[in-house]
């Protein structure tokens, strides 16, 4: 009988959901047994069911969701020891029906081919799944130009946001003549609401290293840099471990696989600035300066880090590379539509039932991603909008849900594909509040170089604040639109050029909601605190004192068995009273 393998999801999300104690429990119960192996794996993308534990026994893989220590004990006793599957806790099963199987079947996993399946700290598990085979093929059987042609043929475009053809970018860097070139991996993942890159770095770091090595060979670089945000400590730990192992095995370093090609990689930790995700700002930051963008040309392909040709690619872009080289461009371009080939990983979050990661073929309609893969909206609420592309993107309404996910179709709506963050909103989300949220983000993150970006976003934010407080006017809407155009035209880099997008798309698709704030002084979603008021229905209140005892700011007064009253001036609209009232007497208007 083969060994039983127990895999515990221990990516940041798994740990945040309580995977640590579950791993410890399983480890303590099973440690020392020859017939069972317990290991930590990355995120398989079913974050809403974390902590996840997979049992691989006699070729059957069963994944349990929402595991706690007690369930872990039961799994050992019943499943591992007696071969009895605990049906009511099963999420996935590779040889029988299981509740979440369809969510996996809807996906095509190229980038996520290994995450959640292998132990990211063990290079042998990566190698066992075709790892470093792409690099070997590139180095031994292909010229740099052939590698570039293969990537061009695959139709792969940058997954970091702009969607520039990767092969073409490599070609420019290849053609640049210099004694030194750099190959950079952009692991800054600044879009708040996106975590695809984190999951790949944590769960399958070698795929990124291998992608970088292939790219470095193609353009002729000998030094690689991974610029990773410091908010991802686990990713950095796994990358460091992977770098050590790759060097030990000779996949990095001098004379790789005896081919004469030398390349090594080191990590630069980001220092917490969104704008450093932009290429020229990132270069400045790597050089040790304030991360401020500069005009292009010259493009990094000709003059990047310390004036040397530099190629920058996103994490997800790079994770595709080894697969394309191994399987061929045709296998890759088989997926997708139009000029968008392959797959895209989306980070699904917000008001949805099944938050997590999903990799789908390009061209899948948004509706299918949100309702089939992400499981729709919880609590029978109504879908309101989906936010794509983060602070550079936009909010799309129900009418546009049939838009396929491909670069051109999404751009046509005024949003952008972006890096893959998808935040879903329901009727309890206020669109004006969301626009204000993004503007306050870009206003804080603007590096300050371009006046339109620095001051214009501040002015836009002030207008949105006015509107959300019920003091806006119709002229304000015109002013927003006018400023938006000026900021777009007057900014040097993508941050400013796209900063108005969240406002423009919401004005375009959700104008009534702005008007409700302006004309009726009402926030239909009941979010904007100045426009809503809490009160207690005298007919319903039973004087149980619960609300008064739980109010964090003592805004509620009343005696036992008598009517309670909320002082509107003190109330902070936190909703605690609604939550604790046993008779539903608290109302918001």
């Amino acid at each position, binding site marked *: 009988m083969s060994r039983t393998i127990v895999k515990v999801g221990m990516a*940041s*999300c798994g*740990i*945040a*959901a309580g995977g640590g104690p579950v791993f410890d429990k399983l480890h303590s119960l099973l440690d020392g047994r020859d017939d069972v192996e317990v290991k930590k794996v990355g995120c398989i993308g079913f*974050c*809403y069911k*974390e902590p996840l534990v997979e049992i691989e026994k006699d070729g059957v893989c069963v994944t349990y969701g929402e595991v706690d220590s007690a369930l872990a004990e039961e799994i050992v006793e019943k499943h591992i020891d007696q071969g009895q599957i605990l049906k009511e806790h099963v999420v996935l099963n590779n040889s029988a029906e299981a509740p979440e199987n369809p969510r996996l079947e809807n996906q095509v996993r190229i980038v996520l081919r290994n995450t959640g399946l292998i132990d990211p700290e063990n290079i042998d598990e990566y190698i066992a799944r075709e790892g470093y085979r792409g690099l070997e093929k590139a180095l031994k059987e292909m010229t740099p130009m052939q590698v570039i042609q293969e990537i061009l043929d695959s139709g792969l475009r940058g997954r970091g946001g702009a969607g520039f053809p990767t092969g073409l970018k490599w070609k420019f860097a290849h053609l640049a003549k210099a004694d030194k070139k750099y190959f950079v991996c952009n692991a800054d*993942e*600044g*879009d*708040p*609401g*996106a*975590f695809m890159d*984190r999951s790949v770095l944590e769960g399958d770091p070698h795929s990124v290293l291998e992608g970088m090595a292939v790219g470095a060979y193609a353009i002729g670089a000998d030094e690689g840099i991974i610029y990773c945000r*410091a*908010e*991802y*400590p686990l990713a950095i730990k796994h990358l460091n471990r992977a770098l050590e192992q790759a060097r030990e095995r000779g996949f990095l370093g001098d004379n790789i696989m005896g081919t004469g090609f030398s390349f090594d990689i080191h990590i630069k*930790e*980001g*220092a*917490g*600035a*969104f704008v450093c995700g932009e290429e020229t700002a990132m270069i400045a*930051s*790597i*050089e*040790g*300066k*304030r*991360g401020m963008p500069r005009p292009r040309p010259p493009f990094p392909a000709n003059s990047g880090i*310390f004036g040397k040709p530099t190629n920058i690619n996103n994490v997800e872009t790079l994770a595709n590379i080894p697969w394309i080289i191994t399987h061929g461009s045709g296998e890759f371009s088989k997926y997708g539509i139009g000029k968008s080939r392959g797959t895209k990983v989306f*980070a*699904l*979050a*917000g*008001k949805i039932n099944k*938050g*997590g*990661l999903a990799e789908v073929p390009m061209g899948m309609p948004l509706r299918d991603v949100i309702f089939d893969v992400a499981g729709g909206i919880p609590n029978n609420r109504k879908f309101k909008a989906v*936010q794509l592309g*983060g602070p550079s993107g936009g909010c799309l309404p129900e009418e546009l849900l049939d838009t396929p996910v491909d670069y051109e179709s999404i751009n046509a709506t005024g949003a952008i594909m972006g890096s893959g*963050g998808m*935040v879903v*909103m329901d009727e309890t*989300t206020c669109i004006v509040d*969301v626009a204000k*949220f*993004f503007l306050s*983000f870009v206003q804080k*993150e603007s*590096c300050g170089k371009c006046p339109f970006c620095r001051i214009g976003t501040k002015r836009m934010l002030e207008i949105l604040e006015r509107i959300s407080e019920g003091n806006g006017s119709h002229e304000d809407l015109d002013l927003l639109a006018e400023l938006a155009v000026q900021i777009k035209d007057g900014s040097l880099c993508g941050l400013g050029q796209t900063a108005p997008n969240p406002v423009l798309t919401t004005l375009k698709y959700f104008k009534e909601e702005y008007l409700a704030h302006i004309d009726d002084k009402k926030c239909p979603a009941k979010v904007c605190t100045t426009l809503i008021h809490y009160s207690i229905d005298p007919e319903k209140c039973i004087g149980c004192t619960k609300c008064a005892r739980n109010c*964090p*700011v003592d805004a509620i007064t009343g005696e036992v068995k008598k009517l309670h009253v909320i002082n509107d001036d003190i109330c*902070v609209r*936190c*909703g*605690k009273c609604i939550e604790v009232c046993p008779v539903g007497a608290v109302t918001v208007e």
Partner: protein
Amino acid sequence: MTPLTTESLEHLEARLEPLIDKYKGKKGITIPLLADVQKELGYIAEEAVDFLSKELDLPAAELFGVATFYAMFRLQPEGKYVIRVCRGTACHVQGSALIGEQIQRHFKVKDGETTEDGLFTLQYVACLGCCSLAPVMMVGNEVHGRLTPDKAIQVLESYRTRA
């Protein structure tokens, strides 16, 4: 911030001495240098910048320019545990503002401030990459998800007991 005494200043110079050897004459060092200062002292002390600027022949303005540009650098000492409350998009739509407000009230600190007992520093950040478990906060290097305001306080109080 209390200014350093002459004695502690000497002490400070001795502590920074190794950094001079490490970085003298190299280029592109500002960020790693400041990161090392922060690792050594817990924050970027003004006196440290003045000293290093002289020793390494770097304009103090450049060092301060970089230190104030990046969110990672602190010009004030911080508490034993840094609470990073996520204010990213996913957390925002799931009510992270209320979590932050509750922490502010409970510990009587604002964004960027440290509790009187020196245990916690509150920081608002823009996404911890655990969006599917929103709302999320990070305490030290540990991420806690699916929070409610009450649960956040409970979690934080458990750190106080640990300390």
